[in-house]
């Protein structure tokens, strides 16, 4: 795949590491999370068939994390306006 780094432009996927689903917030107060809520944070992630907001890091390049939306069926990538959103 060709991954659009918001800084470096399109680069081969071998330059990147995958960060899974985007917008998964660390619990504001882990201590008040019960076991089930904590387990959701640690182990459960979206796994959609279709468009997915996900994170990549340009590990062999500028080392920046960013977001994009990729279709998990066609691998078509839509850069998002919030690409520089890193979570």
């Amino acid at each position: 795949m060709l991954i659009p780094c918001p800084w470096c432009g399109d680069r081969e996927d071998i330059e990147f590491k995958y960060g899974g689903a985007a917008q998964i917030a660390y619990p504001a107060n882990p201590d008040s999370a019960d076991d089930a809520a904590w387990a959701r944070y640690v182990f459960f992630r979206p796994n959609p068939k279709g468009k997915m907001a996900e994170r990549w890091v340009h590990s062999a390049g500028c080392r920046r994390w960013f977001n994009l939306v990729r279709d998990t069926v066609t691998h078509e990538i839509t850069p998002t306006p919030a690409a520089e959103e890193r979570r």
Partner: protein
Amino acid sequence: MSRLPEGGRIDRSRPIRFTFNGHTYQGCAGDTLASALLANDVRIVARSVTYGRPRGVFSAGSEEPNALVQVGSETMLRATQVELDDGLEAASLNGKGRLTSEPETARFDKIYAHCEVLVVGGGPAGRSAAQSAAQTGDRVILMDEQPLLNSDSDGLPSNVRVLLRTTAFGLYDQNLVLAAERRADGGRLWQIRARQVVLATGAHERPLVFANNDRPGILLAGAVRTYLNRYGVAPGTRGVVFTNNDTTAPLASDLRSAGIAVAAIIDIRREQAIVDTDGDDDGLRAVTLAGGDRIECDLLCVSGGFNPTDHLYSQAQGKLRYDERFACFRPDGKLPNVTVLGAANGEFDFAIQPCWLVPGTNGDWSAHFVDLERDVTVADMQRAVNAGMRSIEHVKRFTTIGTGSDQGKTSGINEVGLVGALTGQPIGGVGTTTYRPPYVPVSFALMAGRNRGDLFDPIRLTSIQPWHVAHGAVFENVGQWKRPWYFPRHDEDMEGAVQRECRAARENVAIMDVSTLGKIDIQGPDAVEFLNRIYTNAFDTLKVGFGRYGLMCKADGMVFDDGVVMHLGPDHWLATTTTGGAAAVLDWMEEWLQTEWPELTVRLTSVTDHWSAVAVVGPQSRDVVHTLFPAIAVDTQSFPFMAIREGETGGIPVRLHRITFSGELAYELWTPSWYGLALWEAVMAAGQPLGITPYGTEAMHVLRAEKGYIICGQETDGTVTPQDLGMGWIVSKKKPFIGQRSHRRGDTRRADRKHLVGLLPVDGEQLLPEGAQLVLDENTSAAVTMIGHVTSSYRSATLGRTFALGMLQRGRERFGTTVYVPLNGHVVAATVTEPIFYDRENVRRDS
């Protein structure tokens, strides 16, 4: 000889000698092996894989299902694609390749290319597409699998790069095209990123399915024309044409002008058919017509229509639809930035009456070949359908049709038509099987390119490597690094060397290259807060000029990595990581910093390769350091454990750290890697009067285990918490850190978790194997419950005995008890101890 007196794009002035199955023949420059064999009247080129039936050249290109040959160590080549070369030695195959283990002489290259427009296929459609694309000044690549363009190659503008003998075999996401180039000395793999891909890949002619349709002498009609016109070869003397379409119209005159008698033209559209063929050891002799007439011939030219070559388009998830008019599947809709042109797009101009099978004379379908390479017949397909199969994929898997190295290029659409006919489904509803890369077979060697031998994976080396090599080190792979494992002297074995190296570290002074440790420079006003969140322990109180050991967990609470964190100055820190964990830890830190804690102002910079690091270890290490750095006070009050100093010796700038991974008095000396070798040599020279001894990773492991220091990845395996390791002391209760919440889960609070323990074999000579399991019952004849395992085990020169570390269920409750280690055929008893065997009070470390 069946070489025509004139014609063809071959060079008759350059005869080429070659051998086939041990016989010597002669062809011309420009011949393929297939054309040269036909020119020499060699009709049987191979035998079929299942039935051993004789087979001859069937096509003139990469779709060839029959003429599979061995050329030296190259196996399963298509005679239709092997360019004739002086001294070529080829042999028949029986449908299976023969691998040989001859030393590699060929070279396989790999190259990236970029262009605005890539045109695949150098026929008229492709050529004109390339020409018009080039007008804008864009970079254009025009690629064809033949050694010459099937169109005028002159006059192409200079911004068109023409790649011949190059077959595009894969179209991947966002127009990455992989292509294989055949080169005289091997091959080259092209990886081309193209903004636009133009597929002008033409169409494959398909045969007709009738009884005994596989004999040598039966060729695709278009291939016959290619042999006549391009190679100047007559593939027979008396020909019959069997067709269902009018693309074969020019064939008769081509045959006649080559001096080949045209015995009959059998056209399904005129309700004619060939229902069987006869032959002998040399191939086709006659055909039988519906109605019983028999016609003698040695050449049968068949055409059942054309299949657009849409493999690349379809690989990239392009949709196909069935076109009733031309009886073929053609592109339906568009792929982004891909254009399909000409015959590949189903742009035909001929009339055809589809025909998927021609009944024989006796109701037997077992010699109606559909897939010549895999020897699949109509009878096989009937069996699949009768068993309940409806899906084309099931029929494929049941019969193996289309699974040969030709991937069904000539059989695929006939298969679809036949499944439709046998199950009563419309052909468009049957659909095709899925096209997958590669379009043509690609050798493993080509895909591997130059990533072989030492270049298979980077070898990472420290600046001190030349010394290690010169001094006979035996190396260990640690990740991508080569690290000295031990330094044997003379005839010493590993155990002897390690014992000696350990004694030197404990008794006088020893030296180790620790440059491979990961090193991360950390700066910023929030560095302390950052470290506090990353590590389980706190760094608030650590003064500038000192280091502190730190441990980190993943969110699941399990130990991830460890190392020493140095406080170098205001808002300036440096963290070391394990050798194997360096990249992962930096990634981990950056991920949290960038994605989760953007409010923290902290900057990370990898400095792993900037620093070379030398550990000087042992009771006399202070003397060595003093010799090298007379200006630095080295007494323990002035330079205490975990303190950091800056110094210089003989022009070498050095940062000194009083750090130990052995439990001995020890120093780590860091210098920019340019000076690494000089520093090492300086330390060796200074320590020489004291008998300074270089040591490797094995002695390092023994020394740290004697002190009960863990190694992440050895004592831990992703299932171990700090508490399990007896390291609750390093887990802060006062501040949050990653993984903290997981330590409160039910499972991590279980009393019966496994704990790190020491293990002393009752017989102090007995070395427990690492990985051995621990049980409570000496009698292991019945089913036993495993309650732990040995993580580290060594023979200790210092202790004068063997010892081990292990993870043991309720281990800390079992100190002083005996556990058992079942080995192959016997059981060894070991006493459970605290996981520390040496200098429990840290007297030596702090001395």
